């Protein structure tokens, strides 16, 4: 029993918390006579203690890196590198017009990728989202244009249909027990067939000029106040939620972040948001599409991190049996997650139609699905379930779209180079995911 060999008590500083994690694993808990005797505050030196202030923040950061908890560091670093390279080589990559352009292009695939994040959290895959996106756009357009239906109603029917399709996949997976891979592969084929069927011999339908679908990804709040106002509200909201948590934790006598860290975090968020607002205002103003996309991510993030439902999704992703024994309705969670995925797929399809101007037979085909999955994974959501955040959809699709736009500006509009580079980035992301899992295991964290 090598586990129980007495390691001498560690005469270490609490700051050395990486070390202490390891020792915690191997040293018997009551080996320290002081600890055994003192049921009283005496802090066990092996416990993870966060130092106050920036020094503690740095130590914690180092410990996380060593332990393989990379979070979104690789993707943010990658994004900065990509932007720097293209800016240097083209000289106009970071122009407001180009960034605005990127902001428009990421919305559709990004929404689809957000749905994929939910499914990946369960450790499953949804291959049908591209076809669902195409079908939704086609069906809504056909209803609105060919059947002369009210466009709002047509869009609503399209989205409800997309959610229903997701629920159907979920039903076959969770209730019947067909592997999600196969169910959604069937969906991938079937729904793109239905898309062609719905379109009939008109293979392409232009959006109604000035209609709902037309506006989704082309409408801009051109008033400068809109972008700055929303940025101010977002920063205020973030600061309030941070401060509120700080206050409650302090009141409950729990470890809490120091005010300096709160100020730093809020500062960073404020800089990011206001720079984005400034850049957008230099061009057309605040785009409706981007606003919807970020709102969906904020909502999804809240649901996943702060609600019972989100906790249950993570629990099912982390261990189905444990979740079931805890009384969680696994079938319902699975069906609901596929429903969300289908709905966001459909919503993404409408935004893609809006951005390209037409709902045609190609929409949602090609590499739409693959890019959405790649975006979620590049952004840092694990393929193995139970780890990830909706923000990874935004970061991942930003990386992919930046590569595409950047290469296009370089003059190589051929898909060949784009695909090869995107493929390499995806491989790098998955390698990082696997390697970080391994080093997490080594550090006892996976």
């Amino acid at each position, binding site marked *: 029993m090598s586990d129980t060999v007495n390691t001498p008590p560690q005469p270490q500083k609490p700051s050395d918390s990486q070390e202490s*994690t390891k020792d915690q694993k191997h040293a018997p*808990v009551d080996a320290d006579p002081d600890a055994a005797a003192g049921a009283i505050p005496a802090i066990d030196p092996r416990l993870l203690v966060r130092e106050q202030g920036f020094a503690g923040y740095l130590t914690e950061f180092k410990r996380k890196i060593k332990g393989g908890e990379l979070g979104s560091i690789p993707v943010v670093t990658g994004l900065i590198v990509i932007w720097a390279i293209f800016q240097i080589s083209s000289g106009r990559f970071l122009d407001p017009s180009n960034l605005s352009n990127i902001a428009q292009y990421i919305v559709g695939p990004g929404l689809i990728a957000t749905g994929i994040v939910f499914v990946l959290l369960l450790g499953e895959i949804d291959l049908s989202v591209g076809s669902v996106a195409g079908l939704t756009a086609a069906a809504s357009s056909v209803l609105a244009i060919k059947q002369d239906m009210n466009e709002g109603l047509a869009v609503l029917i399209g989205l409800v249909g997309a959610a229903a399709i997701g629920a159907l996949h979920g039903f076959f997976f969770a209730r019947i027990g067909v592997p999600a891979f196969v169910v959604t592969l069937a969906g991938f084929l079937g729904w793109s067939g239905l898309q062609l069927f719905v379109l009939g011999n008109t293979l392409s339908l232009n959006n109604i000029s000035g209609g709902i679908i037309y506006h989704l990804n082309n409408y801009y709040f051109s008033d400068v106040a809109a972008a700055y106002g929303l940025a101010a509200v977002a920063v205020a909201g973030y600061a309030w939620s941070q401060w509120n948590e700080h206050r409650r934790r302090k009141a409950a006598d729990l470890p809490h972040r120091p005010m300096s860290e709160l100020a730093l975090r809020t500062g960073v968020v404020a800089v990011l948001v206001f720079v984005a607002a400034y850049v957008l205002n230099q061009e057309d103003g605040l785009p409706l599409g981007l606003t919807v996309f970020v709102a969906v991510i904020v909502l999804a993030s809240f649901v996943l991190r702060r609600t019972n439902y989100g906790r249950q999704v993570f629990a099912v992703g982390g261990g189905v049996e444990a979740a079931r024994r805890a009384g969680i309705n696994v079938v319902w969670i699975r069906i609901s997650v596929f429903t969300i995925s289908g709905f966001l797929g459909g919503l993404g399809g409408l935004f893609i139609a809006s951005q390209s101007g037409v709902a045609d037979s190609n929409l949602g085909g090609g590499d739409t699905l693959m890019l959405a999955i790649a975006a979620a994974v590049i952004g840092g959501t694990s393929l193995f379930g139970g780890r990830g955040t909706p923000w990874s959809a935004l970061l991942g699709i930003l990386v992919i779209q930046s590569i595409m736009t950047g290469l296009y500006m370089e003059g190589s509009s051929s898909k060949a180079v784009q695909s090869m580079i995107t493929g390499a980035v995806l491989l790098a992301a998955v390698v990082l995911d696997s390697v970080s899992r391994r080093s997490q295991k080594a550090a006892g964290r996976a």
Partner: protein
Amino acid sequence: MSAAPVLALRGVSKRFGAVQALTDVDLEVHAGQVVALVGDNGAGKSTLVKTIAGVHPIDEGSIEWDGKPVSIARPHDAQGLGVATVYQDLALCDNLDVVANLFLGRELGRAKVLDEVAMEKRAKELLDTLSIRIPSVRIPIASLSGGQRQVVAIARALVGEPKLVILDEPTAALGVEQTAQVLDLVERLRERGLAVLLISHNMADVKAVADEVAVLRLGRNNGVFKVKDTTNEEIIAAITGATDNAVTRRKARGAEAVK
């Protein structure tokens, strides 16, 4: 023990098809008492535990809770009475932190929004009263050792304020020191006035913490021993069925005399 036992089984039988898993089994567990349930493989320990936990309803006999007959048909019924079962495979979610696991399935909060602060506070209080030491309540279960996971699983059973805790082989996969931690915890449960039913293969563990040892053999009672005045050999003899010894003979004689 004058008070009615927290849990009493009277003549419980359970049949699976042609297999008679339990025959006429009696068992009593009082508050503040640790009863060890021992027996060879296939003796019916797990089946007995599952009847109490509501996984398998009993065919015959009766179950009394605080002296009143009750029926346990579903796991939900058992939880409602105050039975908490910690199974051998702990069923914790590796990716969630300790607090999330402790409250999994009964999260605190309002209107489906989690109250992390309240949960963390209660988690700390609970772990402190049990003198459980883990590096932090906010690290994932994956980073805990086997013994720490076991104590977290036991602590999790206590979140619902049960009266009876059933531990299925809590020390089977643990090292010496970790086993000691878990046994300490079992004693603390007893000090808190809980009834504990401990299933174990390990005689040393049983002798260390149990007050009484109930032996099952081939689905039948094969003696209940006070740990204080019983030797390992007597218990093992009861388990293996080498029952032809002084204790059993005297018992049998006593029983005849009563009749």
